[in-house]
């Protein structure tokens, strides 16, 4: 499981000023452009350290992909950014505000400026598509029913599902459910949208639609997008900037071109999907022969 190289072998490693590093993002240039700033983040679950001094910047207006093998804490990172989890040490700032220091009311005010697309979609199963998208608008605005209807239909039009507004979540395919969830996530016109593994389990058509949607929405609405994924090809296609994380740290970062040119064995194994390399297929354990000869229980 251990990469053969240390993070220092990769470009843009922890310890460097990640905000000043090169990025392929068209809009990512100045330090002031950073919307989410994470510094020296440490987070543990029981005995296990998920993040150990993580530094990471998300620039305004850019699509930033955070990638890494399964179990590296990518979803946990999103939960930390949205304040669902609190770090053991370090700082997480969104637009200059330390998320982990906010009380509940302030955190909820901040979340109204965020949208999140869950891996499962997280649609409310007792509401139809229209009511799911209308839900945050009804909760947080006093729009008239007719204006609310127009707004919901426009959001659904943006994801190509205006015609499916009467369907229940149980009648949607996985790809459709994620697009409805995306319409709901952008209902309040957030400044930042976080995608948790949006491409997992999608057929090629849904995948293509989602990839285009994420990019188009980001550019058309001047959003900032954080994309957590291990689908290398899709994430690389739309990202302005990529972070590769492993063992609780950033092991490489840069534009898709820079990451493609990176020669470190760990980065190449992950980006090219090689089965053998510094990341081992087998979970650490005793040798097979010793295990088979052991007469113990399990």
């Amino acid at each position, binding site marked *: 499981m251990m990469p053969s190289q240390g993070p220092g072998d990769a470009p843009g490693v922890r310890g460097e000023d990640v905000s000043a590093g090169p990025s392929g993002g068209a809009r990512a240039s100045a330090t002031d452009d950073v919307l989410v700033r994470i510094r020296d983040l440490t987070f543990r679950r029981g005995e296990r350290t998920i993040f150990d001094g993580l530094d990471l910047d998300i620039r305004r207006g850019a699509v930033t992909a955070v990638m890494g093998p399964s179990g590296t804490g990518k979803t946990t990172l999103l939960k930390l950014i949205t304040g669902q989890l609190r770090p053991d040490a370090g700082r997480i700032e969104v637009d200059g505000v330390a998320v982990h220091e906010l009380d509940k009311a302030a955190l909820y005010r901040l979340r109204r400026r965020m949208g999140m697309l*869950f891996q499962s979609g997280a649609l409310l199963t007792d509401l139809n598509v229209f009511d799911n998208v209308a839900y945050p608008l009804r909760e947080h605005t006093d729009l008239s029913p007719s204006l609310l209807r127009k707004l919901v239909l426009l959001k659904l039009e943006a994801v190509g599902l205006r015609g499916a507004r009467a369907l229940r979540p149980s009648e949607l395919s996985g790809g459709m459910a994620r697009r409805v969830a995306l319409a709901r996530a952008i209902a309040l016109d957030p400044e930042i949208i976080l995608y948790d593994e949006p491409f997992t389990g999608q057929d090629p058509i849904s995948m293509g639609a989602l990839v285009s949607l994420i990019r188009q929405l980001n550019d058309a609405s001047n959003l900032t997008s954080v994309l957590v994924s291990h689908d290398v090809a899709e994430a690389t296609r739309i990202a302005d900037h990529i972070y590769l994380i492993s063992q609780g740290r950033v092991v490489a970062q840069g534009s898709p071109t820079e990451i493609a040119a990176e020669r470190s064995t760990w980065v190449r194994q992950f980006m090219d999907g090689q089965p053998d390399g510094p990341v081992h297929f087998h979970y650490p354990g005793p040798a097979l022969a010793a295990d088979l000869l052991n007469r113990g229980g399990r």
Partner: protein
Amino acid sequence: MLLDPLARLGRSGLDVLARFGRGHQLLLAMVLGVGEVLRRPRLLIAQVYNVGVLSMLIVGVSGLFVGMVLALQGHYVLARFGAAESLGLMVAASLVRELGPVVTALLVAGRAGSALTAEIGLMKATEQLAGLELMAVDPVRRILVPRLFGGVLAMPLLAAIFSAVGVLGGYFVGVGLLGVDAGAFWSQMQAAMDVREDVVNGVIKSLVFGVVVTWIALFQGYDCSPTSAGVSRATTRTVVHGALAVLGLDFVLTALMFGG
């Protein structure tokens, strides 16, 4: 090695205490969120329907049979002492004071309580609760509070239905089948039943059981492990803990109300 069982015991003791603490924190948060149901009474009405109206059939049928059995058993005993005319009083007092609130609470824990736990647990497992939080909507206020107060309101109404149908069941068996005088059946009941002593105490019991059963059901769902096994365990715990809490509290309340 020798201390392992002791360590395990200590750990499970701490787990129970922590769970108890989380449960009370949740109850406090729900009580403080009462404003939500005042602002949006439709949420409350929907939950009174879910917990109350949808439980009416099982509560009504159970009340009918319990009343009929009470009349049979009561007549057998009372007739030996020449007091069969007191059957109406015995059936009504047993139902209004005791069996109505207790059996209704047990039935609600089994039907509506388990449904609430499964619903909340699945909402947790499918990230619906997390989704609400990310939409800056407090799931405790938006989802749990209406269900708590819906359960609390529905419980005394269901207990009243249970007792009323039970009395009718007792009348059918006592007067219709066993030949007790109808006038005596009703007049003894009317003369001896006291609003404060019997009816109000029964309603107080029902309200307390309503809080406890719904609270346990909601907490188990909200605190469950978000897996199929976790939801299954939580649903079982709702019924077991709910039933034990109702029976234990019934003793305490009865001792306080009628103990002398």
